[in-house]
């Protein structure tokens, strides 16, 4: 990299105490559009995150994740290296084209009444107690049962799906190497699950989501059984933890902004705006990683091929240069956030996530008033995908 002409801040992003919403990070963002880190550079401001996230000079940086953690083989490794998250170029585009139609917003809309029934059923289970553990009692069952609805499997099987998704999720954590056997065993179980589903829909195709994937073809090209299986595992892997965490973070943000919660209770039509605002100021995916595919210069910085570039989503979404009033405001007009990533790797399932969360939040707001922390909350670290592990809350039941 070139010699910087201004003092460039340094962030130790592997430090367990590193916090995205900290004075350290705000000061760094004020000082410079990027920071050096213990591995690669971190982009801190909105305009630069927006530009670099979609730059053809950067590719997805996660392909080497297993190798970085000393993992060079096994079921997870094989799956990871063939999944849409890490594929590039035409290999990526071909799979994405075949998957896209099943994720169409028009088809997702048909599931909205079921999301509403599910949200109300879960709220019913704790509303009279005046308290709940929000992750255990709402966010996790909601996020997972949405997946079972999408996959067309009995909703009663959600605990299995939740357990498997969480176990595979360990692969993204710092203890990946130690957890490898557990992770591989969970991938094997998910494979079996997915293969069973595929066989069933091949024999009895319907109008459902998995049938659409089974029948998907474009110009005579189809997904092989293996590609289909890998995609279903990705859906479970990518769709459960993220939505659970994001709902937990939404509750946290609204507890900090009680007047916005009241507004949402009165205006359920703001459910979509609520999701966008929460993901702008408090996203579960706090950064997105890319890697330079060639040498290039961006603004004053020479970026060498192979450099890791972290795009900080939360920092960009609260950048005062792009958001003069960065506080949550459901009635404000704000530029789009990058909580779903962006560019060719933009989250495939975002219409599902947006649809299910934009139903859940106003239903919660319309039934519980003044939610507050009762203590005992536990949190994932701020790096990577964050959110509450436990979120005990108290509230007043609305009449």
């Amino acid at each position, binding site marked *: 990299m070139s010699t910087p002409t201004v003092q460039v801040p340094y962030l130790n992003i592997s430090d367990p105490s590193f916090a995205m919403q900290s004075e350290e990070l705000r000061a760094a963002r004020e000082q410079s559009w990027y920071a050096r880190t213990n591995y690669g550079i971190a982009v801190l401001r909105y305009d630069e995150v*927006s*530009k670099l996230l*979609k*730059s*053809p000079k950067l590719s997805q940086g996660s392909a080497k994740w297993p190798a970085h953690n000393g993992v060079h083989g096994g079921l997870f490794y094989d799956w990871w290296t063939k999944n849409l998250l890490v594929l590039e170029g035409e290999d990526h*585009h071909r799979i*994405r*084209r075949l998957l*896209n*139609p099943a*994720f*169409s*917003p*028009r088809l997702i809309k048909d599931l909205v009444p079921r999301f509403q029934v599910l949200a109300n059923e879960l709220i019913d289970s704790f509303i009279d107690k005046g308290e709940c553990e929000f992750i255990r009692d709402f966010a996790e069952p909601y996020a997972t049962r949405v997946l079972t609805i999408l996959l067309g499997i009995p909703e009663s099987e959600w605990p299995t799906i939740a357990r498997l998704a969480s176990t595979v999720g360990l692969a993204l954590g710092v203890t990946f190497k130690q957890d490898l056997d557990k992770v591989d065993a969970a991938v094997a179980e998910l494979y079996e699950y997915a293969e069973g589903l595929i066989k069933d829909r091949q024999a009895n195709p319907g109008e459902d989501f998995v049938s659409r994937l089974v029948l998907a073809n474009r110009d005579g090209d189809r997904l092989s059984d293996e590609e289909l299986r890998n995609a279903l595992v990705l859906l479970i892997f990518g769709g459960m933890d993220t939505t659970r965490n994001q709902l937990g973070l939404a509750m946290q943000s609204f507890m900090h902004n009680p007047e916005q919660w009241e507004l949402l209770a009165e205006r359920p039509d703001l459910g979509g705006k609520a999701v966008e605002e929460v993901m702008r100021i408090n996203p579960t995916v706090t950064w997105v990683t890319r890697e330079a595919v060639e040498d290039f210069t961006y603004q004053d910085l020479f970026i060498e091929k192979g450099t890791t570039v972290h795009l900080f989503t939360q920092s960009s979404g609260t950048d005062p240069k792009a958001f003069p009033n960065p506080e949550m405001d459901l009635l404000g007009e704000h530029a*789009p956030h990058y909580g*779903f990533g*962006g*560019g*060719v790797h*933009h989250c495939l399932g*975002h219409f599902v996530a947006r649809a299910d969360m934009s139903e859940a939040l106003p239903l919660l707001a319309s039934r519980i008033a003044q939610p507050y922390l009762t203590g005992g909350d536990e949190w994932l670290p701020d790096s990577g995908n964050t959110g509450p592990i436990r979120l005990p809350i108290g509230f007043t039941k609305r009449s």
Partner: protein
Amino acid sequence: MKTIDVDRTLCDNHGQCAIAAPDVFRMNADGELEYEATFDDALLDEVEEAIDVCPVQAIFLKD
């Protein structure tokens, strides 16, 4: 004949349209969208898919 209209105030240059309908939409070397407003009827399915997948729903068909 239908023509394509991209609302440039919404377009965020994610490039999903260029994946869905590469015969009509492409991203240039700066990562910015270029497209033809008119297209062959045979490409209508592709174009409709591009409209569907746009993350910010910025693509419209006009008569």
